[in-house]
């Protein structure tokens, strides 16, 4: 839905206000899979304080907007992660935090999912192993920018669209 001009006053204003409210209260599910979760907790705690941006962690996926996939997604936990994603109400976004969630990381093995984008759509990838709290905050701000850009019907330029590739090392079982 591309909005080219600023001709429609009421519609654009409503979309703008909704987009503003959505990007200013992104509530993530408090789910952590591996060591990235420690950094995620660190981001929510005193020193980095996500509450500055209006972000508070909710226990239940039914009340959350963002799924931060923090850590290695092994094949056993992948169905649960997908279930949690499906339990979240729309509109929802996914941040893939760290190398493991983004592409398998240092675990190119039979038991590890080679990137969480094989099971759920991802909005922002954050590099790092594990990403620092600053990097996670960067990712959240990228997501806010993306929500803002999407309202205007544009694609975000900074983040290249990742083409899913064959996972290389999986051997025949």
């Amino acid at each position, binding site marked *: 839905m591309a909005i080219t001009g600023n001709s429609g006053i009421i519609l654009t204003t409503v979309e703008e206000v909704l987009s503003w409210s959505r990007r200013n209260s992104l509530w993530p599910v408090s789910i952590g899979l591996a060591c990235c979760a420690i950094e995620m907790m660190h981001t929510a705690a005193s020193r980095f304080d996500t*509450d500055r941006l209006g972000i508070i962690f909710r*226990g*239940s996926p039914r009340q959350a907007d963002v799924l931060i996939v923090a850590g290695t997604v092994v094949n056993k936990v992948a169905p649960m992660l997908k279930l949690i994603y499906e339990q979240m109400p729309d509109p929802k976004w996914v941040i893939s935090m760290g190398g493991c969630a983004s592409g398998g990381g240092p675990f190119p093995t039979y038991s590890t999912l080679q990137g969480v984008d094989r099971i759920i759509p991802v909005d922002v990838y954050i590099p790092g192993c594990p990403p620092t709290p600053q990097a996670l905050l960067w990712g959240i701000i990228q997501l806010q920018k993306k929500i803002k850009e999407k309202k205007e019907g544009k694609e975000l330029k900074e983040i290249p669209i990742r083409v899913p590739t064959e996972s290389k090392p999986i051997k025949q079982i």
Partner: protein
Amino acid sequence: MEIISTVVVLVVKSLIFILGMFLAAAYLTLIERKFAGHVQQRPGPLHVGFHGLLQPIADALKVLTKEDLVPNNVDKVLFYLASLMAFVPAIMILAVIPFGDPIKIFGFEIKPYITDINVGLILALAFGSISIYGVIFAGWASNSKYPMIGGLRKAAVLIGYEVALGFAMVGPIMMAGSFSLREIVQAQEGFFGAFIWYQPLAFIVILFAILAETGRTPFDVQEAEAELVSGYNTEYSGMKFGLFPLAEWYIGTFVLSAIAVILFFGGWKGPHIFGAFSPFIWFFLKVFMMFMFFLWVHWTLPRYRVDQITEIAWKVMLPLSLLNIFITAIIIMVKG
């Protein structure tokens, strides 16, 4: 004609009270988040508006426009009813709370309360108890493990504190000789006339009961995040979820703080140093102090187990409140 004017005045007053309470509750969330932030040595909401002033609006808009999920296996009627059951009675307590003496503006006599009935306190207690049904229904109707544990815990706690709360309120009622909240305030004259000097035991019991009723931290077993995912409201999303914290944590705490202020701190009475609106300003100052006290307790203390709470309620608070009634009765008898 008189009936019509009475109805119009009542409707306008109720609308003002309800809308005012909605706005106040929205900004109480911001106060709580700021307060929690500074307790934990962080700034709290900071970037949405000036020092987070637009944060409640952003949250409210987002929660209102979220998808409204209703899981397949819930009891539909109770599921929808529960959030209203929690919210409506909590806001109905406002009907009996007086905010000041009648004042005259442009020749009209304006009474800053909706109704002044002689069973006001009992009505407030009743509405407070009905509000708890919302929590229990939510736990039951969700047809899910954690909400049900949360709802049953709340039921167990309810049975404990409700008895102590009722008995603790008897002390101030005996001293004032009335159930009407307005007459209780009028019975407290001057600084040393406030009932807090004569009823410290009742005050302690009522503090405990308000903390338990509103689910503030030492007694927030019904939505203990570390144990139950999000407690009784785990399966709720969107505004159906939003009504629960609004009703319990903000409107409930605010209204019960107002009742505690009326019972123990002389309501709107205070030195006339703010001009014509002195009673309102004193009342809201006192209620705000009480509210901040509850926030302070909430963000400082760890949580009791549910069996410890019922133990405190039955073994400490109930005897304390009975003792308070006994002492008050003897003093009233001796002094005549």
